[in-house]
């Protein structure tokens, strides 16, 4: 049973069809890379899976929940890192993480572990407003990992991170998938996707135009297999 199953999904931003008939299926334990130019619909697709974007037409199920009927029930089982941090300016790094972990029903030590993993311990008492862009990115990622999620949805997760941060994120994603987790991420950086051995799903103009397996040593298109 796939974790995500989307058929002919149409999503509107105002009257503009940001998704114009997307098909996507993601199995448990997969890393899926959403590729495509700016405005292709990658963020909208991630928001649709997260239940933040209503479905206008087509079908979409995540963890067996039909998103047309219920966009909320599956959210506890996923974590979403978008362009924003979802954090509060006047709370410290530790307070933001603690709130996110507790709200998700995770044990409080998950927040401490996520903080340590993303190198945020020295910044624990610093308010979100005082963080740099890269530090905010680390906080957003730590917030996602502070939840006991089964599905990670990441929108340009490497953006703003330094080399160490990127390597750390890749290691964390590999460990997450090795433990049975599933990852769907968008990125313009093909080298990162290659390092992760992700399955590429290319989106252009709100529709999927191709998919292929990207591996560090070889690229095998689904069409040629």
């Amino acid at each position, binding site marked *: 049973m796939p974790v995500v199953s989307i058929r002919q999904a149409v999503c509107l931003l105002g009257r503009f069809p940001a998704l114009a008939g997307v098909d996507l299926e993601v199995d448990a334990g997969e890393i899926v890379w959403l590729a495509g130019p700016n405005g292709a619909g990658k963020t909208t697709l991630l928001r649709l899976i997260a239940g933040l974007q209503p479905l206008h037409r087509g079908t979409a199920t995540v963890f067996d929940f039909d998103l047309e009927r219920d966009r*909320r029930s599956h959210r506890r089982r996923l974590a979403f890192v978008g362009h924003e941090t979802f954090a509060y300016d006047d709370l410290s790094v530790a307070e933001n993480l603690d*709130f996110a972990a507790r709200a998700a029903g995770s044990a409080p030590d998950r927040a401490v572990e996520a903080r340590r993993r993303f190198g945020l311990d020295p910044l624990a008492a610093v308010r979100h407003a005082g963080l740099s862009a890269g530090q905010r990115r680390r906080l957003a990622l730590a917030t996602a990992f502070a939840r006991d999620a089964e599905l990670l949805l990441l929108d340009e997760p490497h953006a703003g991170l330094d080399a160490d941060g990127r390597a750390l994120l890749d290691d964390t994603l590999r460990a997450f998938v090795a433990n049975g987790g599933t990852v769907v991420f968008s990125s313009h950086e093909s080298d990162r996707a290659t390092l992760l051995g992700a399955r590429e799903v290319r989106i252009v103009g709100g529709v999927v135009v191709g998919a292929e397996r990207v591996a560090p040593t070889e690229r095998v298109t689904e069409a040629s297999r």
Partner: protein
Amino acid sequence: MTLVEEAVLVAAKDLRIEAHARVVMTQVLPFGVVVLLLFAFALDPDRGVLPVVAPGLFWVAVLLSSLLAVSRSFAIEADHGARDGLRLSGLDGAAIFLGKAAAIAVQLLVLEVVLLIGVFVLYDVDPRGLAVLVVAGVLATTAIAALGVTYGVLAAGMRVRETLVPLLVLPITMPVLLGATRAFEFALADDLGPAWRWTSLIAMITTVTITLGVLSFESLLEEA
């Protein structure tokens, strides 16, 4: 987590933000005091009008201050996509409503204590019927906070949030304003029978507003 635990988590988060930012204490509270002072200047203490209209002026000052508190409560959810974070958190919508309303109510109650002292001092009003003042005050404040959160979330996703909130909240709080003013009038006149009857009416309004908020908030938050 139970609904109450989730609500406490949200309320604690909002109160912690206020403890760090001190917006209500440094901006809303002075605003309420300034409103009281303006009424005093406009109505002239020597004419003897102020003690008579003091309960109404007090609740108008509270209502105007509550608009700022409600706007602030949703402004903190507008930055950095925090509202999406709240939707994704997995928290029950009813718990978010109760938590945010409780945090606003706590802040307003602190403000009301200061304003009430201001009324006693500036408007030359003798403090009487304190039990009614406390019970009616807590109930009316809870109703105002609940209505503020319910209607505040309607405007939360809009660019015109700051100007729309007063238009939405003020008309719907009229019954609370009326009931609380009457309860305070009778309490300060030491006429406790009618004061408790008006307090009962406020209790009914509070129950209805909380029920409506609990039932509707999750859907409103999704559409915000």
